[in-house]
């Protein structure tokens, strides 16, 4: 299928998008507040039914719009790029942040004074709803000490040693629900199932199931009616429309919205319209990031195929529709605290569309829609959606080529996922083979069995380097000036390398243990306080089980999972200790510790030796890579000792987003020569500036790790000079590199294809580079919108081009 470029409509929608500023929409807070504090409607209802009623009221009352020229209807808020407020899980946690939204250093929002005043009225009433406020009294002293900078007085400011992070704000992200079934039977079909199941629950007098199913039924009607509101709006607009073509388009939109998502779509347009309504719906229900559309090229393809065969649509028009669908994603938006904006700068919502790969029965899944999705990313070139392309042994060469064509545009899209590591990894976690083959990517580098997973897998970050910092200080935390870890002995008395590794392993094990305890507590809070009946309607088998996904209704119930930050720093540090202290005898543990404790002041020669005279991870050098394998094995083994609320194992991973910057600010000097409080290495990538053997070596090093154990996913960032991949030969070499990296066994790889000089130029002249996208972590963002440290981080990532 030939790739059709962007039409004038698509260009115009994109140009217009670039003029929109992120902004706040308080309607959601207002409507929820009214329902819970100014009406009797939910007072006597069970909590979960109340949540469904609130969802229904929101969809019924909120402002809706259809953008000029758009072919897809539906939005998160009352304006493009509007962020709704979620008082029922965030409470007034972010009130301070909202006050700064218009003036803070980066990730700024437009926000009127009147709206802020209204929020100032509303949110204090919701103080006790904040998940953080609920969790805090549940935490024991040890958890508080490790999570909070000032555990006695401030429950907001974290240590950056580790966090629960994303799930502290809302319940349901990192989820790929069952779009396919909704397309097959419509939400009214789901409702019929729920009603049938409710009958049984009533017979059994199963109170929990009755409450959940009532909530589910309310939600089914709510989303159906939401579509109908858009149908009405489109008809209204059509009446007033003078342009005949646009009038026809609006009437088509109206017909689509009358049909979906209540009833099954009849056309490709209706299929993606339905998908978009569901995607908006789950984000209306609950605050979270990293909602995923999943395998669009699989479940929407039959509709496209039928339209094409029936002559109802041309290939070019289908591409334009899909482009319009893609252009809806960047309209959705999130507010992060300024703190979290450091972790994930650049307005990422990390909404994934995952294409390619294999079918549940192990055949190649690539189809025309796979290529069209890649083409849409080429045509739209915006930060969202995050496109992921899956590869397995049977992927056609044409797919790799098309994907590389997209990647070399330098937008940071897509992520390349490697079925060779992902599928066995998921099977190893107890997931059925056909479900493992049917995985979708979520968030950055995470994966989950599509349609059947409870979701919410990113459970925050563990500072991997902290475990080493503690091991080198007998559990003492130099920055916080307090005992944080456990006692593992005075490092100055260590007489073998094994003692150092053991101390590190015990500190890491301790951190993971505390993390697991706290994360299970938070899972309970999600279950008890913020159930999500709407999305549970289309997560298998919540309806059959009569249970919300937060209560264990899904087929797979993995818990939150930790992301470790700073792999390469730990590996290079341990490698340097082994080589310089225990092999070459150039340094003693005493001399090393003196230098570290002085942050290398007066010991620059020691710092230089640590950097120059030891091998580095990421260079395909077994003298460092064996230690990388070892510490990953420790990480996997330690997380495997713990279980989530529903008795499942965790999905540990190394996808730091941009947490490597704030997490570096709490770590003192390390034996890889990194000075105190500096950034850590990102994902599972090598440290910056040490990748002297280039990207083939980096992939080979990373491929040696136990990715099957680290099913949380690990990000490899590779930066290439545009010249290296230019032209026909460049594309061919790029394709070969990707195939080689996948065969080498990386879990994931993504590229920044941009000259450092261009990035420097963009720093100096931001106004000229407003549409320059770069890959940050598992997401792309506009470079000029990133914080300065993160800009530097992106520039520093080892650049590869040998000419």
């Amino acid at each position, binding site marked *: 299928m030939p790739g059709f470029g962007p039409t004038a409509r698509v260009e115009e929608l994109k140009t217009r998008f670039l003029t929109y500023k992120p902004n706040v929409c308080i309607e959601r807070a207002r409507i929820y507040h009214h329902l819970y504090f100014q009406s009797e409607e939910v007072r006597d209802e069970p909590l979960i039914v109340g949540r469904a009623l609130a969802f229904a009221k929101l969809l019924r009352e909120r402002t809706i719009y259809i953008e000029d020229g758009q072919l897809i209807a539906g939005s998160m808020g009352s304006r493009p790029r509007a962020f709704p407020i979620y008082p029922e899980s965030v409470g007034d946690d972010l009130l301070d942040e909202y006050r700064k939204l218009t003036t803070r250093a980066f990730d700024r929002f437009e926000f009127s004074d009147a709206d802020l005043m209204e929020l100032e009225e509303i949110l204090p009433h919701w103080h006790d709803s904040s998940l953080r406020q609920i969790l805090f009294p549940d935490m024991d002293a040890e958890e508080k000490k490790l999570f909070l900078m000032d555990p006695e007085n401030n429950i907001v400011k974290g240590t950056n040693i580790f966090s629960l992070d994303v799930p502290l704000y809302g319940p349901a992200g990192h989820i790929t629900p069952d779009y396919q079934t909704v397309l097959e039977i419509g939400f009214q079909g789901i409702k019929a199932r729920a009603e049938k199941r409710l009958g049984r629950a009533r017979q059994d007098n199963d109170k929990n199931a009755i409450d959940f199913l009532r909530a589910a039924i309310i939600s089914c009607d709510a989303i159906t009616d939401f579509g109908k509101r858009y149908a009405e709006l489109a008809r209204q607009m059509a009446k007033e429309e003078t342009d005949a073509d646009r009038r026809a388009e609006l009437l088509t939109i109206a017909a689509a919205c009358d049909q979906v998502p209540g009833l099954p779509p009849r056309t490709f347009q209706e299929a993606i319209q339905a998908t978009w309504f569901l995607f908006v719906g789950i984000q209306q229900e609950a605050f979270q990031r990293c909602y995923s559309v999943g395998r669009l090229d699989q479940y929407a393809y039959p509709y496209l195929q039928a339209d094409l065969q029936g002559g109802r649509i041309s290939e070019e028009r289908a591409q334009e529709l899909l482009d319009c669908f893609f252009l809806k994603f960047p309209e959705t938006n999130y507010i992060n605290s300024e703190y979290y904006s450091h972790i994930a700068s650049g307005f990422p919502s990390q909404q994934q569309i995952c294409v390619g790969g294999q079918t549940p029965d192990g055949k190649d899944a690539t189809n025309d829609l796979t290529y069209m999705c890649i083409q849409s990313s080429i045509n739209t070139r915006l930060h969202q959606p995050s496109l992921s392309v899956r590869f397995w042994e049977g992927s056609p060469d044409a797919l790799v080529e098309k994907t590389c064509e997209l990647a070399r545009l330098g937008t940071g899209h897509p992520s390349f996922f490697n079925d060779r590591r992902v599928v066995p990894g998921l099977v190893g976690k107890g997931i059925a083979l056909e479900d493992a083959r049917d995985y979708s990517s979520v968030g950055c580098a995470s994966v989950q069995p599509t349609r059947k997973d409870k979701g919410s897998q990113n459970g925050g970050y563990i500072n991997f380097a902290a475990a080493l910092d503690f091991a080198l200080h007998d559990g003492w935390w130099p920055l916080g000036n307090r005992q944080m870890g456990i006692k593992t002995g005075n490092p100055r008395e260590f007489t073998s390398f094994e003692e150092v590794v053991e101390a590190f392993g015990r500190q890491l094990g301790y951190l993971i243990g505390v993390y697991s305890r706290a994360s299970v507590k938070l899972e309970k809070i999600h279950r008890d306080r913020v159930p999500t009946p709407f999305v549970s309607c289309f997560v298998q088998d919540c309806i059959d089980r009569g249970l919300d996904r937060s209560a264990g209704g899904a087929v797979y119930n993995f818990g939150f999972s930790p992301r470790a930050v700073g792999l390469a720093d730990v590996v290079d540090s341990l490698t340097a200790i082994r080589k310089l202290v225990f092999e070459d005898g150039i340094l003693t543990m005493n001399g090393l510790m003196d230098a570290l404790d002085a942050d290398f002041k007066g010991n620059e020669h020691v710092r230089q030796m640590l950097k120059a005279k030891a091998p580095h991870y990421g260079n395909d050098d077994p003298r460092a890579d064996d230690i990388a394998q070892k510490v990953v094995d420790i990480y996997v083994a330690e997380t495997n000792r713990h279980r989530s609320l529903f008795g499942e194992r965790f999905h540990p991973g190394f996808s730091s987003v941009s947490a490597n910057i704030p997490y570096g600010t709490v770590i003192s000097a390390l034996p890889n020569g990194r000075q105190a409080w500096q950034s850590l290495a990102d994902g599972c990538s090598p440290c910056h500036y040490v990748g002297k053997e280039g*990207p083939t070596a980096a992939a080979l090093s990373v491929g040696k790790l136990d990715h099957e154990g680290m099913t949380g996913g690990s990000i490899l960032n590779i930066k290439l000079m545009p010249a290296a991949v230019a032209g026909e030969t460049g594309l061919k070499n790029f394709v070969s*590199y990707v195939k080689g990296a996948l065969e080498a066994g990386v879990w994931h790889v993504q590229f920044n294809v941009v000259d450092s000089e261009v990035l420097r130029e963009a720093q100096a002249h931001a106004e000229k580079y407003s549409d320059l996208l770069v890959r940050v972590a598992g997401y792309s963002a506009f470079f000029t919108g990133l914080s300065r440290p993160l800009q530097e981080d992106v520039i520093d990532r080892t650049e590869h081009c040998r000419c």
Partner: protein
Amino acid sequence: MPRVNHQKRSAIMGKSDVQIEDCSGLTAREKPLFSGSRRAMAPGAEGVVFNIQRFSLHDGAGIRTLVFLKGCPLRCLWCANPEGQSGATEIRYDKNGCIGCGACIDSCPEGAVSQEPATGFTISKASCRACGACVRACPSGAKSEWGETRDADEIVDIVKRDSLFYRHSGGGVTIGGGEVLFQPAFACEVLRKCRELGLNTAIETSGYGDWPWLERIAEYCDTIFYDLKIVDRHEHRRITGVDNETILDNLRALDEMLVSRGTDRPLHLIVRVPVIPEVNADTENMAAIGTFIRSELHNTSTVELMPFHNLCEQKYEQLGRPYLLKGRAGLMPEKVEPLKKTLTDMGLNCTIMSW
């Protein structure tokens, strides 16, 4: 054959032949051809390598690993790898990476290192024996060795690490330098072993060496990048330090080999012309090159023009050697278009390579 304007060049360079040879520390006349070379040794022997570069994309098909052999009989003015000229290990001093600790001064048994205001911890070429004591003493890696003696098996072990990338890309190994023919037995052995592994093999050569060795090496090559800098014999001698008679003879012989090699695993011969402004970047020289290829080679028609760049300046500084083209701007590839046209008009298949 068009005459070259010697007067013009000398005025531009402002340097005479003598100074060119002075800057190298080793003249071509001192270095015999290889029948008598100490590197003409038995297969399996060791060689001196100054760099191994993975993920190289511009010296042959696909993704390649480049192996740089140390030592070259030529002293080209513009040499981009000056650290490859001398056959012996040299000490590199990277002033930017130096933390000024002075450990190198104390460590040197010859007293060859001194601290100079302009150039930092400078090594006296006259007294340095390249023993490596300063390198071992240097904490930051500012002093390091260029040139390491390595076994052919060791080199092959490194080369084969990227095998799966070669397999996907049709890439392999390219041996350059320095000059491949400076260590022919070693080059031959590395190539033979790579070939046994099924890797695609290539060399880059000036062609200045003994034909029997080149012939043997070519047996193990899929591609040969053969430098042809200037056709005029005197001018060649003046800017490279050696006569081009051997080079042209060898090129003719290689060209004939293309036929005898057959189609089973064909040998590709690509002529490379470094394009150096005010040295050989004139249409007369390019026409002379074109004429030579058209009239004297019967099986070769591919030419790659390599525009001059100045990315190597720092390396001269690190070697403590003057660089006669210092400060010259690199040649933008589009400026080379007229020269490309000269060659394409003669029916040659010509590409301008990026830096």
